């Protein structure tokens, strides 16, 4: 297994994780209607990315890993992270901000993997892999821009108006 395969595998894992996180956030914040609907739409992008990455791994003779064994649900993980940071103040606005921050970090992690993959594809003259990265990476950047915009829009009210 070479480095490119490692990145493929890590990114496949990262996109699947982001898809689950987006779905969980959509579910948990149903009353935040825009977050609910857009997160659901954006989870679709990550699922598509994961499928394409799995296919790319397969044709290169390195099938993607099987799903993790009963990982802690991302919802639980997110909620635990937020609850830890927020002490015992389960304010829905604050929880949403913390969840959006987590989503942003996950998407940024994926974005850097896409960068690595695109660079490796160019160095190795792997046209198909480069095409995959060129097609998917912009959507990851759009996921990051969305979480960033939502944080920007919601922070003033959530953080300064009790």
């Amino acid at each position, binding site marked *: 297994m070479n480095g490119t395969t490692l990145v493929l595998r890590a990114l496949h894992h990262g996109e699947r994780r982001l898809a689950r996180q987006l779905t969980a956030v959509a579910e948990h914040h149903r009353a935040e209607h825009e977050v609910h609907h857009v997160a659901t739409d954006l989870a679709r992008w990550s699922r598509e990315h994961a499928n394409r990455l799995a296919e790319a791994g397969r044709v290169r003779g390195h099938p993607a890993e099987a799903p993790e064994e009963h990982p802690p649900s991302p919802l639980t993980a997110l909620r635990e992270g937020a609850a830890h940071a927020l002490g015992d103040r389960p304010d829905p606005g604050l929880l949403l901000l913390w969840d959006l921050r987590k989503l942003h970090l996950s998407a940024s992690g994926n974005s850097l993997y896409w960068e690595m993959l695109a660079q490796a594809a160019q160095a190795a003259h792997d046209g198909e892999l480069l095409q995959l990265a060129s097609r998917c990476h912009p959507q990851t950047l759009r*996921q990051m821009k969305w979480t960033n915009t939502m944080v920007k829009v919601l922070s003033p009210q959530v953080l*300064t108006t009790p």
Partner: protein
Amino acid sequence: MDTSVDRIADPWGGRTPYRRHQPWPARVDTFLEPGTGPESVQRWVQTASILHSDGDAMDIAVRDGRMVGVRGRVSDRVNRGRLGPKDLFAWQANSARDRLTRPLVRRAGRLEETDWDTAMDRIVERSRELLADRGPGSIGFYTSGQLFLEEYYTLAVLARAGIGTGHLDGNTRLCTATAAEALKESFGCDGQPGTYDDIDHADVIALFGHNLPETQPVQWMRVLDRLAGGDPPRLVCVDPRPTAAARRATVHLAPRLGTNVALLNALLHEIIRAGHIDHDYIAAHTVGFEELAREVSSCTPEWAAGICDVPAARIREAAEVLGTADRLLSTVLQGVYQSHQATAAAVQINNLHLLRGMLGRPGAGVLQMNGQPTAQNTRECGANGDLPGFRNWQNDRHVAELAAVWNVEPETIPHHAPPTHAMQMFRFAEQGSIRMLWISGTNPAVSLPELSRIRSVLSQDRLFVVVQDLFLTETARLADVVLPAATWGEKTGTFTNADRTVHLSDKAVEPPGQARPDLDIFLDYAARMDFRDRDGGPLIGWHDPESAFEAWKRCSAGRPCDYTGISYAALRGGSGIQWPCGEDTPEGTPRLYTGGITWARPDDCESYGRDLVTGAATDAVEYRAANPEGKGMLRAAGYLPPHEEPDDRYPFQLTTGRTVYHFHTRTKTGRAPQLDAAAPDVWVEASAADASAADLAEGDVVEVRTPRGALRGRLRITGIRPGLLFVPFHYGYWDTPGGHRPADGTPGRAANETTVTDWDPVSKQPLFKTAAAALTLVERGNGTPSPAPTTTASAPWRAGAAPPTTGGRSALVRQGPAMPWTGPAGGGA
């Protein structure tokens, strides 16, 4: 041509045919209350219609201090004397017996009459408390599309620089937010590119989700007159209902709800494939062509046919008509704006015109329409979730300019995030961070989606609700303070229609009781709050409509919506004037973008744009890189499936909409006898195939249910698209025992009991045309017909299935040349 016409039975009146490129002939419509002859009218007072966005110019007839009728203004370019049914009859609501005449305050749970000082002091006291304890973010303002320019501007200054809150939006969010956003996305700035005069010159008129005959009936009269004359235009109509426009169309496409982007991408695919694009225009005036061409390259008519359920051949036919037009006029309204992927779809229509170079010439234009009469002013004045004068909240120079106009520090004006949109304000109120909501001239307890949720938000003890209106609306019944407002005809001001035409509306009669103009109420509040500028002077230095207009002119100077060349004197007596109107354009401006795109340069633009799928904001650096020279932007968007799809439990798609006889929540039109009788109650439309499959007949009482709630109405079987149900959204509860909601144990009547809380992430416009629903029989009609009008899109599929909608003698309107008038001049007639 001097006849009387029943304008309920015939909403559009008689024809005055004319040829392409000829001026539209005049026809003056006059309606005076029974027993009033023209000789007994003492004054004609100049105004324009306040019941749709057309801006029909009219005069109010006054006798003994009362309104007694109306007539169209023959000299005005918008309507050349014509009036629609609402213009003709709805003025009668001004003198309805149940007008609010005194302020009300809630005491021990009940609304009680009081005086102005008590009511205003209560509002001021709560404002001060909240500012001290919770800050400006705890106060929100939700306004209208029916106040006047001077009122919105005053409200914008007091909210943004006085209170310092970002929470100010209008119900224009429900009607025209997508129009504004689509214009910003394509042209960098709001501002209607086309003009109604383009109807005189176009050889193809395309109506995208726009029921023109019912929303702007006077411009439909213009189209009908072209169709009756020489060299008539071809019509392309995209609408799932059999509207009067669909019946006259060369090509009618009736797609599944929520698939506009797929259909439009296929039309663009075909137009590019066939080479019907203007390469020189694209090179000179646009950016983004390669990306758009790539996005639509796989969007074949066959692909779209599978998604939209429209035959591929019909899509090709439409593309051929659009692609070969010599002068193409497109109009867009709620079928796009209130549907899934609203902005993404509206932008594709701008793309069509950019690709074909169809802008800025007679007959070649886009009309991204408005629903409400003064929605344009809500947008311009910054009362709609934007900054006044189409200024960019992300551009520090624009904010500094605004701060200089207001003589405040730039940081006084919240601009660290986009101004809050209405749906988000209701969410903040639901969560408890907004504690005071001042609602002026609108009725969210009927007009917003998912009414049980809205009622529960407005009913919270911790939320202080102020409602300023003409009547005790459903929303007013939930208020803590109710302020009685004067309306059109009882106050002076200006407003601007969907093609940028500014009209003056003069006061004709006194308001009832202690009712006051909205402007006076806002000025009174600002004075009591003692808002100051940075030199300690009063923040708001004006005191009446004309001085407010002059203040607005200073704010508009140098911006696209430049009013500096307009004055009350210039508007009085003549025709409306289209902005921009300044030093270089003293006569106004019929068409924008005659020589290319003018307001998209990075330093000038109103917005750097948003992602068409996520709504994420673009920043200045990205915008500058993508569009350094400020060209038109061809923006691509892929199709996404709607968020709510039919299933076994909810097998139908459900859409809501309006009828020609009513406006908004019937606050006025329900109190005009002719209009009320024409469409007295809610109904449900279904196709003949669906009715027959469910064994339902005309007039059967049916229930429409979604996961949010249900309503009941009588069934009308029409030529609507199979699989689709339609319910008009006008009907609420003020004229039922429930008052503001369904009475206990009775079924819902309002369409919005069923609608979903979902909005376009780009324009934040709620989506009223995307829900899955179930339809069940409640009770057989046994011959009682549905109350749906037979004259319009709700006409029965089988002729004679219901008695024809008529108005009889009380709806007779005189139609002819200008009425001879030799009495004393007055009121600017």
